[in-house]
């Protein structure tokens, strides 16, 4: 049997890896897979880089940033599969939600109300609000920044952005160390179920069917004989995850402490509703998504203007490999609809 070690972070969208293991999709493809739960995204990136992990559950922008050498050494990677679309959200603390007018409903209205509140605090000489995201190179960081910047918030001056491990965000909302968090499922649901805040934004509203995690691997893995069976097993697991009748079983499976380690009741609601693993080409890494990520990296000065974005994307994003696995398993989409616009009606490549 072919052995592989795959890393993951305790988040609902690690489901395809867990399901492929638990439901025997790996075994059916002749793979002997060890799943390794990791404590940080930095560890995931480093272990993939040095080969301690063959592939991993990874923040989509991380694969691009590592290949570009942004914020660290150059570590060429590929993203041959998207693990899911949607799933993240912004939760505001009770104190902050209560300070905002009740009428604010749409993303624009809430951001506008937030911006007005932030202005008012600054005029009163109060310290800036603190928001936590999971990593500098993440959909979470970019969505939060984009949303607030649209409402006129100056991200450098008006708010303090910190990086916090997801499970700890819930605790920090409780103690008031942070005023808001942008994090993936199930942690927004865990926070709201605990009465610790209100969800103000879901990435499914921010950018319907927008990107979040990919399967990330070292660039050399593109030529590895184990990659095609790995992708075949994962796309079958993704299709399994989307079946409505499997929702409760999947939630209970992920709830186990060696996987996500949160209540099944907090995990279940997002599955199939928010988080889509397979339907409508959710598993195909879209070049448009990568283009938006690179535009955000540029906007927030994480990369220089001189970087050749299209060349980088072509090296990292490999929809061809996902599509080959989908065709081989008979799960292929008839046609891929291009990604739609963001909540503000702007297209994906707008800065």
């Amino acid at each position, binding site marked *: 049997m072919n052995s592989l070690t795959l890393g993951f972070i305790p988040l609902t969208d690690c489901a395809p890896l867990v399901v492929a293991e638990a439901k025997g999709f790996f075994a059916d493809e002749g793979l002997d897979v060890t799943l390794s739960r990791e404590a940080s995204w930095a560890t995931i990136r480093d272990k993939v880089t*040095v080969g301690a992990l063959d592939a991993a559950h990874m923040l989509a922008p991380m694969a691009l940033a590592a290949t570009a050498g942004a914020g660290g050494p150059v570590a060429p990677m590929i993203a041959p599969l998207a693990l899911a679309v949607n799933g993240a959200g912004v939760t505001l603390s009770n104190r902050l939600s209560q300070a905002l007018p009740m009428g604010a409903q749409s993303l624009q209205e809430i951001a506008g109300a937030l911006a007005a509140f932030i202005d008012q605090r600054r005029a009163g000489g109060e310290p800036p609000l603190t928001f936590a995201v999971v990593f*500098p190179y993440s959909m979470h960081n970019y969505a939060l920044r984009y949303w607030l910047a649209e409402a006129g918030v100056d991200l450098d001056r008006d708010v303090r952005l910190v990086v916090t491990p997801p499970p700890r965000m819930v605790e920090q909302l409780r103690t008031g160390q942070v005023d808001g968090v942008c994090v993936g499922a199930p942690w927004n649901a865990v926070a709201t179920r605990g009465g610790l805040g209100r969800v103000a934004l879901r990435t499914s509203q921010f950018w319907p069917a927008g990107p979040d995690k990919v399967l990330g691997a070292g660039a050399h893995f593109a030529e590895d004989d184990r990659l095609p069976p790995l992708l075949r097993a994962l796309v079958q697991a993704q299709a399994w995850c989307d079946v409505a009748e499997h929702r409760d079983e999947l939630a209970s499976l992920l709830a186990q402490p060696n996987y996500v380690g949160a209540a099944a009741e907090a995990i279940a609601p997002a599955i199939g509703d928010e988080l889509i693993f397979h339907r409508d080409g959710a598993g195909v890494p879209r070049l448009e998504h990568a283009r938006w990520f690179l535009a955000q990296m540029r906007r927030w000065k994480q990369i220089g203007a001189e970087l050749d974005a299209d060349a980088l994307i072509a090296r990292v994003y490999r929809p061809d490999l996902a599509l080959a696995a989908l065709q081989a398993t008979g799960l292929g989409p008839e046609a891929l609809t291009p990604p739609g616009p963001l909540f503000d009606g702007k297209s994906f490549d707008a800065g």
Partner: protein
Amino acid sequence: MRVLVIDPDPARAALVAEGLDGVDPLEVRQTAQFDAAEVASFSPDIIVVACDSADRDTLESLREAGETNPRPVVMFADRSEPGLAEQAIRAGVAAYIVDGLAPARVRPILEVAMTRFSLMQQLRGDLAKAKANLESRKVVDRAKGLLMKERGLDEDAAYKLLRKLAMDTGRPIGAVATDLLAFAGVLKGDAS
């Protein structure tokens, strides 16, 4: 020397303190998890953290954000992951990663880490300065070109004029050149 050990297990901080015995003055503080306020108030010379700590992302983001007062971070891998440290060093992933933590190795490792860190900081500073110098030279060249064309000066005279302007106003020559170009643009109607 002030050392902050971020680890839920106080044993590791004790081990670091043992390894640094004889360093004077020495203060080793242990904290279960990263706390920005504590780091700011304690102001450690170096931070020690396990590479399987959930705080790694936070520490890394501080470096990313170009924190005003960055600190070297030493990471160590547990023996449960043999070879990871060597591989990581070879791949350039982390400069300060060690297998396990034995008291005898603590001091040299921390000292090397701090030296390398200040070297890196200096290199980073030099690079930024070199970039700024290059930029300034380009601006000066363009300002010289403008003076040569508009005032009919040769290159040497144009440069001397710029230098005189800089000395008279007590500002860097790059800043004077930038202003000159901007004013010329306004006079031509570029920024009307």
